[in-house]
């Protein structure tokens, strides 16, 4: 098998460790000196904390400390500082950490945690985004006016209300758009919060060395982010905080934020800096740590009779739960991409984030674009129906093309957008669209298809950057060190492939360092937003160029010619005109020794970095701006077999065609796309955070919060279009999240066609479909 470079399916570098149980995740470090922490969490969604009685808990032998919010009067948050690691004064969601107990074993800490007595005074609950909006609604945060805003100009809270963010995007002339519209459709949607369910629950260890050095080991997507926030909020020099991230057991955005790390740090501080391990139970992971946002959306679209979109009005209200975290950012991202990959010259979008007494939210695979896409793509289907037009035709007719502009007025070109039409064209054949959207199979069964398009750009901070270091070993192999965390999609292997391609050498001779250690690894913003291969890949390429330059310099001395006459490949530096004249890189990588014994040079270290140019914050009144460097686009479809008698269904096939720019690792890319699709089918068909009327979480367990299981998966059809993005390494685009984006919508479109009812509120369980059909009198 060819093992040089990109475009080949190299198994993950860490494969052997992962199939032998040797792969070490953060909780796998078992050390006798570790103390263990357990969180006391709120049983109310909204309540004043009247008192906390620790006496009984302290009576348990082996309890070393108990920390409550009062010993840590700080407020933090990445966008607005509205959150205290341990609740103070009141709790704002069910599961909110109130105290943390440190004990000699997990059993001791947990037992004592059960004995911490919290006296609550329950308060009225804000239990939905609609309720949050009402003027007489209880306020989740009374102090919104005095909270510190961290990212000025990106978040616009409205003190005295539950409105935390209001983003406006305005493009064209809406009035004119409506006048030109011959057909108008309007609909509302409601999408529940959901959970990330990385199989490894969130956890962290913290230790404070005698010299004040803080060490945090975390299952995280953002070690540098943890370093930044721990140092900021505990007033430490950045270099006084070291964060290490080993292999991570899944993240999906849920491990981008800093949460349990703060609590683990407080726990360690309370026991004189001794190492403390804090592992969330599954229930805590589902209620205490942040989840995926909920959305209430209204969309109105207008089109000419031929299907050309003329006007669009969007109201997107996101349920970010009790604290902001990245909730305000996600509203911006949704607003910036509100039109979908369609040409819509006249539009208004109002995107809000509102506080509720639900679990707070953070990034979720696709930065929650799957939710806004659901609303838009359902409306597109309704429009197609109203126009009497084929749904895929309508999408093709309106597909954005180079030369068009995005809602925030970014001019699109082949590089930053790719080729959506080609994706749609391919999808049509792949899913056998022409067979018809709805086919009666007899016996009460119907086969139906639904489609949706996807697009997404990243919401990177304008100064997000990445670096890479290449070091040569004495045997001529290389070590590649980067700041990206391996959370599953095989990024480290892809990065090795990028390096192998550039150096034209065997990937097996490139070692990647799996663990990230902020004190030793080069920087990377966060392992998020599908940007790892793009950003870090560019840094690796830069490092490779630096590395090659150095190899050629010393190679030129050895081969007695100018560096310009040399090439690097197959582990050699050779003469371009005659590759048989060469020197092995292992002979020059750590200095070159002349036959006479004297030596020159030294170890070659390649270094490279990358920062994203041209990002511009959105203008507060029009939304004009540029959030990310490029979009990745694609088209998706789902086919179901629906039983009209009992409203059950089988998902038969699911298809995705995506413009990947360049596929670096075909099996790996197919895998992440299918993984995203699988998650999308889960969300579309069954996943939802259920809250009682009192705002308490009812299904914080996998027993009642169902994921797709083996055998429920449909046949997956995945294909790629390759329109290179000149700025991506070898033309690649970030697609790691995107498989999820259009799938819930495509599923709902298929099921709506099958059931001949509007299914606008996932999850689409048989009960939900039954309910909708009953409502529609069917």
């Amino acid at each position: 098998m060819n093992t040089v470079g990109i475009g080949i399916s190299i198994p993950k570098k860490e494969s052997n460790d992962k199939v032998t149980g040797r792969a070490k995740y953060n909780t796998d470090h078992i050390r006798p000196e570790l103390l263990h922490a357990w969180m006391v969490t709120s049983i109310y969604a909204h309540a004043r904390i009247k008192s906390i009685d620790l006496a009984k808990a302290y009576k348990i032998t082996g309890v070393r400390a108990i920390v409550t919010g009062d010993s840590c009067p700080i407020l933090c948050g990445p966008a607005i500082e509205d959150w205290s690691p341990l609740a103070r004064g009141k709790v704002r969601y069910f599961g909110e950490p109130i105290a943390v107990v440190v004990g000699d074993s997990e059993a001791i800490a947990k037992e004592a945690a059960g004995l911490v007595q919290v006296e609550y005074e329950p308060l009225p609950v804000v239990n939905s985004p609609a309720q949050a909006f009402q003027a007489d609604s209880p306020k989740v945060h009374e102090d919104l006016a005095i909270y510190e805003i961290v990212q000025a100009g990106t978040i616009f809270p409205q003190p005295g209300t539950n409105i935390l963010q209001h983003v406006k995007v305005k493009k064209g002339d809406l009035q004119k758009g409506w006048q030109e519209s011959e057909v108008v459709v309007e609909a509302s949607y409601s999408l529940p919060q959901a959970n990330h369910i990385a199989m490894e629950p969130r956890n962290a260890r913290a230790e404070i060395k005698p010299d004040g050095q803080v060490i945090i080991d975390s299952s995280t997507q953002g070690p540098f982010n943890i370093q930044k926030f721990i140092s900021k909020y505990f007033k430490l020099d950045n270099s006084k905080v070291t964060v290490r991230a080993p292999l991570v057991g899944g993240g999906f955005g849920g491990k981008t934020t800093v949460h349990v790390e703060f609590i683990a740090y407080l726990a360690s501080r309370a026991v004189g800096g001794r190492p403390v391990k804090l592992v969330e139970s599954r229930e805590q992971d589902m209620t205490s740590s942040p989840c995926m946002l909920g959305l209430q959306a209204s969309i109105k679209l207008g089109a000419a009779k031929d299907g050309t979109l003329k006007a669009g009005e969007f109201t997107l209200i996101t349920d970010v739960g009790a604290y902001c975290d990245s909730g305000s950012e996600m509203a911006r991202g949704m607003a910036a991409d509100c039109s979908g990959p369609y040409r819509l010259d006249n539009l208004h979008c109002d995107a809000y984030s509102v506080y509720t007494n639900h679990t707070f939210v953070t990034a979720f695979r696709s930065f929650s674009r799957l939710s806004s896409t659901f609303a838009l793509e359902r409306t597109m289907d309704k429009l197609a129906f109203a126009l009497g037009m084929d749904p895929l035709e309508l999408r093709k007719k309106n597909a954005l093309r180079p030369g068009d502009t995005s809602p925030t007025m970014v001019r699109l070109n082949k590089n930053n957008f790719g080729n959506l039409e080609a994706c749609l064209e391919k999808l049509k054949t792949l899913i056998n669209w022409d067979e018809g959207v709805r086919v009666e199979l007899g016996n009460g069964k119907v086969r139906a298809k639904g489609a949706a398009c996807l697009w997404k750009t990243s919401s990177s901070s304008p100064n997000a950057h990445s670096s890479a270091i290449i070091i040569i070993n004495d045997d001529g192999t290389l070590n590649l060190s980067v700041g990206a965390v391996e959370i599953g999609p095989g990024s480290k292997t892809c990065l090795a492939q990028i390096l192998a391609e550039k150096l034209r050498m065997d990937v097996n001779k490139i070692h990647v360092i799996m663990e990230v250690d902020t004190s030793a690894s080069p920087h990377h913003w966060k392992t998020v937003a599908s940007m790892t291969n793009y950003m870090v890949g560019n840094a690796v390429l830069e490092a490779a160029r630096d590395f090659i330059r150095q190899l050629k310099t010393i190679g030129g001395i050895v081969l007695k010619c100018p560096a310009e006459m040399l090439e690097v490949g197959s582990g050699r530096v050779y003469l371009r005109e005659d590759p048989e004249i060469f020197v092995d890189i292992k002979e020059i990588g750590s200095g070159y020794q002349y036959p006479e014994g004297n030596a020159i040079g030294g170890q070659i270290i390649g270094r490279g970095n990358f920062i994203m140019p041209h990002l511009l914050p959105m203008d507060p009144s029009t939304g004009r701006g540029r959030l990310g460097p490029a979009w990745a686009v694609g088209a998706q479809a789902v086919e179901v077999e629906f039983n009209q008698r009992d409203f059950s269904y089988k998902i038969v096939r699911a298809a995705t065609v995506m413009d990947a720019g360049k596929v670096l690792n075909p099996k790996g890319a197919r895998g992440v796309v299918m993984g995203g699709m699988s998650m999308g089918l889960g969300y579309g068909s069954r996943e939802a955070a259920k809250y009682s009327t009192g705002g308490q979480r009812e299904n914080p367990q996998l027993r009642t919060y169902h994921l797709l299981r083996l055998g429920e998966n449909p046949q997956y059809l995945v294909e790629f279009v390759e329109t290179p993005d000149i700025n991506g390494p070898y033309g690649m685009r970030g697609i790691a999240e995107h498989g999820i984006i259009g799938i819930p919508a495509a599923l709902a479109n298929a099921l709506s066609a099958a059931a001949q009812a509007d299914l606008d509120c996932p999850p689409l369980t048989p009960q939900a479909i039954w309910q909708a059909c009953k409502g529609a009198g069917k």
Partner: protein
Amino acid sequence: MRSMLREGFLELDVNGEHRKVVARPADTLLHVLRERLGLTGAKPSCKNGDCGACTVLVDGWPIKSCLMLAVEAEGHLITTVEGLKNTPIQKSFVDNFAFQCGYCTSGFLMNCHALAQIHPQASYATMREWLQSNLCRCTSYEEITQAMENVLLKT
């Protein structure tokens, strides 16, 4: 009558080795394998029997070790992923990209391996019934199904 009234010694047969460990009667097998024997291949995820990440073999049968007491395992042969040595299913998982983050992998491997041993010619329906016991959040299950099918004997 065997009784264990408080923390004390337990003797376990793990991966062909006889091991003596200190445990509490209420300690789960998962906890003892990981915390006392350092066999961290079995993973905690839900500790509620729902996900299968903690699956090990007891006398050759897959068992969720979060729902078994360590003391219950006395006298039985326990196999963890660390005890799998070059089995066909391990290679098949690598070849088929049957994992991403790898956190569910040990549990899946144990279940798959047991199926291949107990029902080497398992039908698709049997395979699905067995492997439904494990959750994977990263892959689409297509890869795992493929990896399993490649190991089962074709009938």
